[in-house]
């Protein structure tokens, strides 16, 4: 799966394997950060990963979703992640 992320200064693409039969956008971001790029910024401090805190909003193909709750089907070929509405702090992190 090709994952393209709007970084602070550029679009950057990563090749991410199918991690599981079902995974979330947060799983994809965690994989990139842990394995491919330690400088990626996405909301991950004080995070619940259960859609309880509502803070990990990101746009998937232009639509705002909670990264921890939005499923990424295994057949996905391309994924475009951009910051949600708001003042961008860094990469996908917006002030909320």
């Amino acid at each position, binding site marked *: 799966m090709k994952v393209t992320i709007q970084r602070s200064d550029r679009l950057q693409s990563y090749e991410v394997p199918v991690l*599981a039969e079902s995974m979330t956008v947060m799983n994809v971001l965690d994989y990139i950060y842990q394995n491919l790029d330690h400088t*990626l910024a996405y909301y991950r*401090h004080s995070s619940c990963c259960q859609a*309880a805190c509502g803070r990990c909003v990101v746009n998937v193909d232009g639509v705002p979703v909670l990264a921890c709750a939005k499923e990424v089907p295994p057949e996905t070929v391309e994924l475009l992640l951009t910051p949600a509405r708001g003042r961008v702090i860094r990469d996908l992190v917006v002030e909320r």
Partner: protein
Amino acid sequence: MIQREVVETDVLIVGGSGAAITAAVSARSEGARVAMAVKGKAANSGNMIMVGGGLSIDGESAKQLLHKEDANLAYTKRSLFEKLVTSSFWLGDQEMQRQFLEEGPLGIRDVMRWADEAGNSPFQFKPQACRWLTSGGAFKRALKHGLRTDADGVEVFEDTVITDLLTSGGAVCGAIGYRVYTGELIEFHAASVILATGGYQPFSLKCTNSDMTGDGIAMAMRAGAEVKDMEFLLFIPILQEPTRFRGSLLPFLMTMANVFPLAFVPTDLDGQELAYPEDARYHPAPEDMKVSKLLMSYFYGKGMYQKWDKHGNRFYFDFSKYSDQEILDGFAAFAARYGKWHGKNMYHHIDLLDLARAVIANKKRLMVGMGNEYSMGGIKVDTAFAATVPGLYAAGEVTVGLFGAFRSGDGLVEMVANGRVAGKSAAHYAAAHERRMPEDAEQRARELLQPLERTEGESPIGLRCELERICDEGFNFYRDGSRMQTAYDALLRIKERAEHLYAPGGRCYNLELLNAVSLRNLLLCCEVGLFSALSRKESRGCHLREDYPMVDNENFCFSYTAKLVDGALVYGKSFPKAAAFPLEHRNFANVADCIADTILRREQA
């Protein structure tokens, strides 16, 4: 000198969940100037928002304080006290346990008032068990209202990570940290500090907020405070798969017959049943369901541990005795119960009918594991919630003493009961003591920035993932000496590598810097926890050993303590006092028998 913003206050509270907010309300009511530093958002962080069940208090308090005329009066403070003592496996502090039963209902009364005033927070009372069913969402709305209405004037610093306490002359007099979004350093000068930062959950499978990295416990140790009972970590069945729902505590709710209508068969991944005896003495009544967490850890763990190298922390809830329709109906009935809090057919982000279909598609099996829910160990405090270092207070899961080797009370009640007292105590201390100028602020600031200044080194997230793997393998809910020793040795190697952490990319929302802070704290907590676990050559509460199954009251009815002296860990022992309830001197063949005989009081057939 490293540039940093300075904030002066009387009482600094670190944390933003239930204990922190009730402490803020309490300290403000004593007239103190209060600042709160919250890693995330106030009333929207910590484990409070993850709550899946509810809370209970004694019947008399429910009737007198909360006006529940139908409350079960047989549910007395005395019976709850005895339950706390025995469930702690006699390591709990009996004075703290008595105080908890007095302060808890008062704190809950405040929360209920805030919930009523907020107008949108359903709490459903179940009179027989004196229990209110609620959700994390309902609880956080109540606390948010309380912070706004009853703690007027509290300065709240959100998205601010506190990295170390500051000291002067051996007393705590502030804290230092940074703003996550900008990386700007911030230094608090305070007459007293309350840590309300939660516990530590160092495993890959957990149902808790990402904040649970032992920050407060480790910071307190670096400031000279003593901790204890760090080997006791509580586990419950939580979801392993589907991956998108991993970490949910839903499976634990499925173990309650009065909540979830389908009865599963627990099996290992080869389909072999994980034997849980039919004997009634091991089957708690609904009002004792908390202890089922420990009984499941014991009985399922015995079976799972035989194949740990093959399957690890994974097993099935097998529903294959039901038809597809029965499974769908069962999940729908469960959904109806929780719909008022989570929305139609939902439990948090889980579409329950979607999950039921996933179970059916997986040969009617749900893959679960024993995930970490809570840590009993933490900062040693007295009944004023004062730590062993002057000026330092603590509240909630970050503390130790109330629950000993196993938590039988409610975390929500613990938060508010502790927060009330800690806030008052810290305010009184602040009123009686001048604010001091920290001696170590510059040094702590340099330590914080080191990972940013290196040009190469170890990745904090890389080491953190390694630490989780080590704990998964050797410090999990079922243990033996060999695995723990391997884990401990591996941890020490990580500790050496963690001296060279590297966080590239500048200060602004730097996840590697955040993980550098968390890793340092988790490492210290795990080192103490593993060392204590290795030393405890018996089983007790949540410390379940394959090689030492006996509850050995003759030789181990004490807590392991630890503190840092000149940078080195010094371990000790702390013996419980029988203030109002006798200690147990008999040994028991295993934890399950101990539970049956002393907590459930079931005679052997």
